Structure formats: C-alpha cells, structure tokens
C-alpha cells in the first residue's frame, strides 16, 4: 500500500491506496463520491473527467498516486449547499442531458473551459468538449447548455 495525500473538493484526505488503483477507483470507492462515472475505462469517453490542479483529466487512466499532493475537483465540488453551480443550472434549464451518464464529465470539461475563457467561440466549445462522448442527446442541447452557462457566468442572464 502507498500513502496518498490528496485534496478533493477542498477537503484533505490521507489514505492508504493500492499502487495500481486509479484516481477514479479512489474517488468512487475510497472517498465514496460516485458522481464521477466510469464509461470506457480507457481514456476514450470522458465520463470520468475530473479537474486536477486546474486541468481536465480522465481519472480512469490516471493512477491515484499521480494525484499525490494535488488538488482534485469532482462534480460534487461544484454546488454550494443547495445552490447549484451556474453550469449545472444551465444544463438543467436547457435539457443538456437525457440519461445523465456523460453529464458529470461534460460539466467538468465545461468548467475548465469557462474558468479560462468567459466568452468562447462555437469552435472553442466544440474543441473543449471533444473528449466527452454522449450517446443520448446528439450534442445540440449540451452545446446550448454550455452557451447558456457562459452567459450566466458573465452575469448576462
């Protein structure tokens, strides 16, 4: 076992983890945050996307030990109490989900985009979400949700 020090959604954890555990395994099974999903398990679908030190990563192909002394944000880290994050509100209002399996990953990729770029172009939105697959929506509503989230975060709606 290895000792892992990790900050998740602002809270410090000191855990004993298997060296071959992925970050996804630890987030879901040790820390118990099951909002982050496992789709493909091999970096293709983006369902497991979390933010590590400000960057979107596929937690299914990052070892837990690679997150040692790092800060991770998962979908659970966005809302403040009962108050949803503007990106979450926008996805709800625009219907940016059907089954919802891809949604946590979509929202984390959207957060990284909008934290760095308040007014992304259509092309920049598509590029930022290119690693997140959705088998239900056909993407149009997701795209609209991201645009609405950007407007909300700029204080326009």
């Amino acid at each position, binding site marked *: 076992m290895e000792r892992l020090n990790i900050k998740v959604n602002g809270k410090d954890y000191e855990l004993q983890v298997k060296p071959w555990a992925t970050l996804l395994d630890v987030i879901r099974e040790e820390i118990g945050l099951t909002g982050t999903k496992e789709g493909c398990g091999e970096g293709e679908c983006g369902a497991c996307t979390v933010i590590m030190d400000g960057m979107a990563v596929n937690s299914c*192909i990052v070892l837990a030990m690679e997150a040692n002394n790092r800060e991770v944000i998962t979908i659970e880290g966005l809302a403040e109490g009962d108050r949803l994050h503007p990106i979450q509100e926008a996805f709800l209002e625009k219907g940016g989900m059907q089954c919802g399996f891809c949604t946590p990953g979509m929202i984390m990729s959207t957060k990284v985009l909008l934290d760095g770029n308040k007014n992304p172009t259509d092309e920049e939105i598509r590029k930022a979400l290119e*690693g997140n697959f959705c088998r239900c929506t056909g993407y149009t509503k997701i795209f609209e949700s991201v645009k609405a989230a950007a407007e909300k975060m700029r204080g326009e709606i």
Partner: protein
Amino acid sequence: MAIFYRRLPKFRYVSPKTVEEALDFLGNHKNKAKVMAGGTDLIPQLKSREIPPPEYVVDIKGIQGLEGISYDGSTFRIGALCTINRIGNSDVIQSHFPSIVQAAQSMASPQVRNRGTFGGNICNGVPSADSAPPLLTLSAEVTIKGPGGERVIPLERFFTGPKKTSLEGDELLIDISIPKPEKGSRGVYLKLSPRHSMDLAIVGVAAWGTYLDGVCTDIKIGLGAVAPTPMRAIKAEGLIKGQKVTPDVIEEAARVAGSECSPIDDFRASAEYRRDMVYILTKRALNRIFS
C-alpha cells in the same frame, strides 16, 4: 477483441526525483520496470493486458527540468515530459514549427493532451504516432541517457519497427531537439481520420520545405501509418529538390510518395486506400508549402 479489464494488474509504484535516480532504478530492475510519462498509452495497455504487467511502474513526472521547451539560438528542445497541450499552445513552437502545433492539436482530447507527452508518443513507437511525421521533416534528434552515458540519434534511426524503438529498458528519453529552421521555410501536417477528434490517423503526411525564385531549395516529407514505422518519403523528396516547382513535379512526387510507402490492410483502412490517400495528402501538402 481482447478482453478489457476494468482493473489494472498489480504492480508497485516508484517516482524518482532525478534522472540519475530513475536510471539507477531501471538499471537495478532491468526488464521488471516500465517507465511512465503521461500514462495515456501505458495505462490502457496495462488494463487491456496488451503488454505483460511490470513489477514496477516508474513514474518520471516528478523529475524536474524535463517539462519545458527551450531555445539556445541554434536548437529547440522539447523536454521528455512536455505535455502535448503545452506544445500545442506554445507561441514559440507555433511561430517556428506550425506543423508540430497542427499535429499536437489533432491528437486525442484535452484530457489526454493535458497528460500525454511527445516523448511518450515516440517511445510508444506506433506507426500512426502523430508527432512523428512533422518531427521527421524537421530533422529532429532524440537525446537518450542510459547506464553507458548519453547518446543522441536522429529520430529516423530511433524507430525500428511497429511498437519497437532503439530504446533499451534501462534507458530514458531526455528530450527531442530540432535545429533552427531555415529562414522562409514552411511546413504543414495533414491528418486523415474518420472523425475530427479522438481518432488515430489512417494516414498522416507532413511536409517541410524552402522555396527560392520558384525553385525548391529543400524539402522533406514525413509519412505516418503507412509503413512499419513513421518514415521519410525520400524518393519523392529527390524529385522536387533543386527543381523548379510546377504542378507536374508536384503530381509526380506525390505519386512516388504513394508508391514508396508500404501500408497494410487493417480494420481502419485498406493498403490500397492508404496509398491513394498518401498521394492526395502529399499533393495537398506540397501545394500548401509551395504556394
């Protein structure tokens, strides 16, 4: 289809802090340890049991000083730990080597580009590695350190076969170096893949050249996914270099590029289609740089 396991096989994890420490560890655990940079090739390969599980995974990301891009007035260096994203967003690389930026931005997804490295891309050694064709046209060299010291070899000699390189199990790639380009030279990388994003190349073509008063003074063409290793189209280059560039010359060179590669049929595309696409993309690439 191979079975895909959700769990990784068991291994131990080490994270050396210096090149020397990493080399010592690799030297003492030859054939038992596997180097990991971004892990975007290695971790899926371990999950699918495509490669035998090593006793140790040696995570080299803790080594300082290998993550940057530097320039000393004659040579650009991309450190082995420099991420694809950093390369794709680098103003220095964009202004001198746009074909490298085009390759970086064509790869995978933001999530993978945030972790994956050019070093890992070439050490993994697949014929479709997107960084390889542009690097080959830029006369890139690789610096390798091992128990016997340091060696520098041209990238062309680094690739030895599909998923095979001249790297030994106790060696580390340190950086990729690229000589300062000739003034006025131009380059391009064109990637053919069914999807825009998240897809490997069916064919990748890079070209780099200089052009003076209508005459080609230098040209290099790099091809990906159409031979056991990424390759140069030397015969095609020979038809253009020193010649006045005309549509006929470009046409002939593109045809020769299509015939000097040796693609295979696989589930992504047939060999015949790949040859045709090498012809088309080479023509397109040459027209771009000589226009």
